[in-house]
């Protein structure tokens, strides 16, 4: 039994890495040409190994960056373990990795900033927004394209209060659509995930009355619905189930060619999800951190024109000062690349959105200050 479990874990790792390879392959032409046309700027003298761990939501982004960065800096090898945000932050605090990828900034309530500052000895830990992952509301209704949903309706659906596709609330959002009376099957992530965390934050912020649960990485059991494991599990469930609806990162929605709903922002405008419309919400976010700590406070009810409201910003968490000299140089060089224009541009083909330029300037400044 124990061996079977271990075997299963090993196989899963194999399957996941195969999946990751698959993603790489799909985009290798785009990435390859871009890095050949514009060689990554970097110091030829950088050599060594960076160990990092954390969010699986940015695993594909890191994989792409790693490939480009290593091809222009052959002396560097980057190990990113997509073990999950929580595990990544723990590894960073324990000092086993040079930076952590995380779906949320260091959490004050859990005392993470203090622990992370202690790990950085002479300096303090900083949150650097690096990857924007828009979250799509996906559904499977043959013949009904461009479904429009308001946050209130979305909350009703995921709270199992709206159970048929021809419910008056959905009709009110879509006066022109011909809606079937199919039962709604709402899927959510059965594993704990930053995507669920952000999605429930969005519901809490925009539809408080219809979403009485606290945002969390684990789906609230009271809301009911069906769970599926991992973004790929969600995508395949939606693909195979008529009447299904769920939320998933844009890249998975596009790879599986799922129908994406237009979501109403704070101004009541139904916005289609594109990298640009998601970037507008990040641009409107306010910076909650101080100095070079660029922790963001996203306004899910943003009124900015053309802004798609459900976005996930993932951070790289590292030390502003106090990393080992060798690590600091490597991390600075690598994050310098990821925050560069070609670093950000390399992401769009993977279903991520580039950071808006105003924020990017600040991130670059913060990376410059790493020592």
């Amino acid at each position, binding site marked *: 039994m124990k061996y079977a479990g271990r075997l*299963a874990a090993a196989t899963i790792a194999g*399957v996941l890495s195969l999946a990751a390879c698959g993603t790489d392959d799909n985009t290798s032409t785009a990435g390859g040409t871009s890095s050949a046309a514009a060689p990554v700027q970097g110091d030829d003298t950088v050599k060594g190994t960076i160990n990092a761990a954390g969010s699986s939501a940015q695993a594909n982004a890191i994989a792409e960056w790693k490939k480009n960065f290593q091809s222009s800096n052959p002396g560097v090898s980057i190990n990113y373990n997509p*073990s999950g945000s929580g595990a990544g932050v723990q590894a960073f605090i324990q000092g086993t990795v040079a930076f952590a990828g995380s779906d949320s900034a260091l959490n004050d309530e*859990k005392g993470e900033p203090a622990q992370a500052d202690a790990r950085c000895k002479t300096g303090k830990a900083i949150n650097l927004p690096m990857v924007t992952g828009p979250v799509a509301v996906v559904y499977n209704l043959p013949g009904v394209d461009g479904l429009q949903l308001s946050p209130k309706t979305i909350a009703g659906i995921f709270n199992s209060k709206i159970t048929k596709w021809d419910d008056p609330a959905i009709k009110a959002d879509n006066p022109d659509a011909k809606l079937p009376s199919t039962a709604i099957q709402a899927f959510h992530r*059965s594993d*704990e995930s930053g995507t669920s965390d952000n999605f429930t934050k969005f519901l809490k912020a925009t539809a408080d009355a219809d979403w009485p649960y606290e945002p969390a*990485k684990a789906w609230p*059991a009271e809301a*009911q619905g069906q769970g599926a494991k991992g973004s790929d599990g969600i995508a395949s469930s939606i693909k195979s189930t008529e009447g299904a609806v769920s939320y998933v990162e844009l890249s998975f929605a596009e790879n599986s060619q799922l129908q994406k709903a237009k979501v109403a922002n704070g101004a009541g405008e139904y916005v289609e999800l594109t990298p640009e419309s998601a970037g507008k919400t990040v641009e409107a976010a306010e910076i909650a951190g101080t100095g070079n700590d660029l922790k963001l406070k996203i306004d899910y009810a943003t009124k900015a024109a053309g802004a798609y409201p459900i976005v996930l910003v993932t951070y790289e968490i590292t030390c502003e000062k106090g990393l080992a000299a060798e690590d600091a140089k490597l991390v600075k060089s690598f994050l310098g690349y990821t925050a560069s224009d070609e670093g950000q541009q390399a992401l769009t083909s993977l279903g991520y959105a580039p950071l808006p330029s105003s924020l990017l300037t600040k991130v670059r400044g913060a990376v410059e200050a790493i020592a």
Partner: protein
Amino acid sequence: MRRSAFRRSRGDGPFRFASTGAGVVLLAIMAAIGVFLVVKAVPALQANTSHFATEPTWQPNATEPVFGIGALAFGTVLSSLLALVIATPVAVGVALFISHYAPRRLASVLGYVVDLLAAVPSVVYGLWGVTFLVPFMLGPSKFLNDYLGWIPLFGGDTVVGKSMLTASLVLAIMILPIIAAISREVFLQAPKMQEEAALALGATRWEMIRMSVLPFGRPGVISAAMLGLGRAMGETIAVALIFPATFTISFRILGPYGNSIAANIANGFGEATEVGRGALIASGLVLFLITLLVNMAARFVIARRKEYARAAA
């Protein structure tokens, strides 16, 4: 043999030491696992702001941790029992066919295939389950719900593919080869004299099997079933992929209900905080206890059967 019984060989001492040592190490490892689970679980259980046995949710990473084992333990036991009920008759049939019905050449090929099935990694069953069986089960589930809905097990208003029934079916397929392989070995051990005597008395093959093979093999089949049950309860990734991971305790095996302890650990570990990990370890401790109880019950049953069989013989 008799000659060497009184002579002490030079190898005796070290061998005795090594085998005693191996036994002690095994016990020490078991004790260490138990201590580790308890030590890690206790702080989380103390941090729990609700009742561990009954709380129908799992939010140990919240600032006020709330989590309960009830629905998870229920799902673990129900899915494993259903799997056992589905798998055992089929497995016994397969074993009997291989041991007593099939031509010898076919039997050896079949036996090999059954052994091979037991070696398929569980994630493969899980992926097959979630990509093929889940959508496929929607039809049969609807049928059961429409025509047999008066049986509480098949009742309910919502029928989905990701259900307790689908998970149990996958578990049943996973434990089938284990039960079949062990049962086959046991049936092959059935005393040939008795079998031939039965046939000589004019019994048909089925009567012969019923009179001599099945009574002889019963303890073996029971222990095979218990091994299968143990595997089903500890099975993690296949059910994590299939269960809808809800925390509702319901006997409606066609509805969107179902979860298990092992699946919950697989789902929660990646993003767990200190308390979250402790909570998951506490759930692991409960699974450990349930497995222990099942194994003890199985040993008890087998011991009684054996005595009975010996007395009858």
